[in-house]
């Protein structure tokens, strides 16, 4: 039976969603390559959700690659490690990709170092107690690498009254342009499944499920080849945002996570492909999170590629490595084109949550003139959370933030931007919804 026929068996999905061009052809066939070290690295202390890390090194101190340079600043916080052997040259406020100034450790690379890893001994996670295992995750700097950068040890701390039945690995990569997870599934399928297995043992789950969009048939074949019994690889329909946790679960199990709830509430734990690989490397190789795969692509970069990048690499250096930004470039975006963030400066670094670096040119749709809403309902059809984005935007413009939440379920929105994508009047719907969330938080806290 051919791979295509196997895929035709079932490609499940969710209600709503959109079909953007995937733009993945430029990089999906390019093997991951390691980026050479550059002169200096910038490590913001806030690159995860939660409290910033606390530095444990001083300016002028020599650090070795893999050494802890900042410890967790609280329960919801993780450690940070030197991506390179060198010297700490500054700890001060620097521009963060989110547009704010954030305390940042700057490390100048030692050009004469062998760049050997300060690795700990590999350990079998099954032999560790729960708290020991979770503290290793926290001190290993592990966060979700799918984009949100939520600390893994917090996600894995399953309350006593909950039981996890299935561990789901998210291999959808539904954002256009991005191919880093696709390449990881192709090149390191064992590590993907090994990480899943570590998770399953830790939380006591009996089943592992990998959801992959069916446009990555080769990745599905690669994973199935190494899958152990009890592990299933599920092909899913190609539709954005298939990779959103709740929609992924809906597609695979036809079960819906309750509004405001977590997958844990129905016995499911979801992690991304990248996180799974990082987890395997942490325990089997003893290396903390100091590098990740980034897809550098788009019409305005000279040589698109998938690069294994040390965290803290400035975008400028990464672009130089990829042949440079072409003269027609108009926008540089961190992340995917649907949920990513445009950058003004190329001096900001690659973070733990950076999955892609998009270089767009004028051929990318410009911020077009906004027309009045004609109430066509395309946003309503597209919304995977079954909300009414046009109405939400209308209420946000009228300062009626409480009504947005009470009648129109504002907080169910996870900002996938499918509504803005389809709007024929080019209304920035998701942006108005963000405004609503922010203003509601402010009003409620004051």
């Amino acid at each position, binding site marked *: 039976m051919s791979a295509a026929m196997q895929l035709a068996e079932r490609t499940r999905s969710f209600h709503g969603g959109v079909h953007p061009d995937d733009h993945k052809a430029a990089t999906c066939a390019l093997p991951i390559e390691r980026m050479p070290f550059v002169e200096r690295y910038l490590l913001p202390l806030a690159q995860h959700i939660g409290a910033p890390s606390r530095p444990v090194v001083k300016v002028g101190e020599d650090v070795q690659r893999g050494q802890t340079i900042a410890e967790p600043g609280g329960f919801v916080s993780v450690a940070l490690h030197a991506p390179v052997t060198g010297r700490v040259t500054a700890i001060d406020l620097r521009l963060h990709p989110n547009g704010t100034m954030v305390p940042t450790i700057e490390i100048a690379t030692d050009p004469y170092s062998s760049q050997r890893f300060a690795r700990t001994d590999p350990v079998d996670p099954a032999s560790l107690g729960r708290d020991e295992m979770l503290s290793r995750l926290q001190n290993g700097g592990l966060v979700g690498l799918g984009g949100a950068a939520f600390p893994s040890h917090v996600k894995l701390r399953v309350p006593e009254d909950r039981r996890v039945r299935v561990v789901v690995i998210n291999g959808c990569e539904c954002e256009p342009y991005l191919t880093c997870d696709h390449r990881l599934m192709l090149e390191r399928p064992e590590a993907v499944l090994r990480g899943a297995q570590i998770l399953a043992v830790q939380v006591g789950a009996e089943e592992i499920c990998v959801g992959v969009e069916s446009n990555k048939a080769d990745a599905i074949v690669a994973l199935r080849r190494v899958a152990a019994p009890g592990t299933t690889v599920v092909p899913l329909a190609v539709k954005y945002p298939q990779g959103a946790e709740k929609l992924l679960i809906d597609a695979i199990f036809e079960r819906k996570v309750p509004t405001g709830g977590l997958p844990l509430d129905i016995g499911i734990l979801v992690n991304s492909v990248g996180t799974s690989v990082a987890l395997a490397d942490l325990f089997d190789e003893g290396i903390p999170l100091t590098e990740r795969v980034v897809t550098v692509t788009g019409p305005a970069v000279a040589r698109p590629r998938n690069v294994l990048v040390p965290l803290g690499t400035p975008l400028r250096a990464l672009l130089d490595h990829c042949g440079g930004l072409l003269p027609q470039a108009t926008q540089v975006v961190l992340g995917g084109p649907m949920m*990513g963030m445009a950058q003004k400066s190329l001096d900001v670094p690659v973070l733990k949550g950076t999955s892609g670096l998009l270089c767009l040119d004028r051929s990318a749709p410009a911020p077009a003139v906004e027309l009045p809403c004609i*109430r*066509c309902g395309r946003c*309503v059809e597209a919304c995977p959370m079954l909300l009414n984005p046009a109405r939400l935007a209308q209420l946000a413009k009228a300062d009626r933030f409480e009504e947005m939440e009470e009648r129109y379920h504002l907080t169910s929105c996870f900002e996938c931007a499918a509504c803005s994508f389809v709007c024929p009047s080019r209304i920035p719907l998701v942006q108005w919804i963000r405004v609503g969330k922010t203003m509601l938080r402010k009003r409620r806290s004051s």
Partner: protein
Amino acid sequence: MTPPERSREIRASTRRAADLVLTTAPFERASLTTPQIMREVLVAALLVLALSCWFFGLAALLIVGAAAAGAAGTEWVATRNGIGTSLGDYSALTTGVLLGLTLPPVLPLWMAFLGGVVAIGLGKLVWGGLGQNLFNPALVGRAFLQAAFPTALTTWANPRGLEGFFDLPPSLLALPLFRAEVDAVSAATPLGLAKFEHEITDLGALLVGNTAGSLGETSAALLAVCGLWLALRRIFDWRLPLAMLISVGALSGALFLANPASSPPPLFMLLSGGLLFAAVFMVTDPVTTPSTPGGAWIFGAGVGGLVVLIRLFGGLPEGVMYSILLMNALTPHVERHTQRRPFGGSR
């Protein structure tokens, strides 16, 4: 350019970041825009106009032209400023052409023009422009004309075919506020025949459109093709016309079975009058209909039900216009009560 120069230029552009544009996500957009939606509807309406010219000659073109000029002119006068006007979104022009297609083929041109002015002025601009109006603007224009000039709006003519293409009915060129010479023999529409003479027009004639009636409501076959085309191109919400047609078919079918002597057959109800024209061009107006899927079903079904009631039990032979306007009034309420349950949750 030699390779070293090329790479120097690229290096230089990587150094330069000052002109990078900051916008918020998403950075990808679907290609369909609002003016494009309006243009597609306009093209479909112009196809209907072309057939109308075949049946009613140059008069059809002039009446629709007058209504469109009234609509577009009003929009231009009211919205022009230093930058431009909102004519570029094609919505005013579309409203004008659609209004023109609902008018009788012997209507004085000045009335058609006035209808266009009222459609845009009273039907759209006073509400705040595109997207803000509660009632379908083209039908507001027509309702105004019907109230102001009831005789002219119910004076019909039989289609003449291509001979005499350039012959204009004298009433067409009547001066404003002067009594129009009515020398044209007023013909009866199929619905009028059914209501007052109990005579059911041949379905073949209804399909081709070779009957008396408003300019756009003639050929059922052409309207069906236009509707299917627009629905397949996802220009409008297919639920709206479908609900309307199902509702008319079901209700008139039930009445026909109960009392075949006094009720026209359902197929006649579906193919005659402005029903198909309204199903394709009027109930599909996104602005004045609910944007929720559930609301679309309710709206369409409501229009269909009212049409059957008015046609069979009301004083008028035709009731599509009032049915839609009545349901327009309910749109905000229907929409409010048909919000979907959010994913994984309760209301």
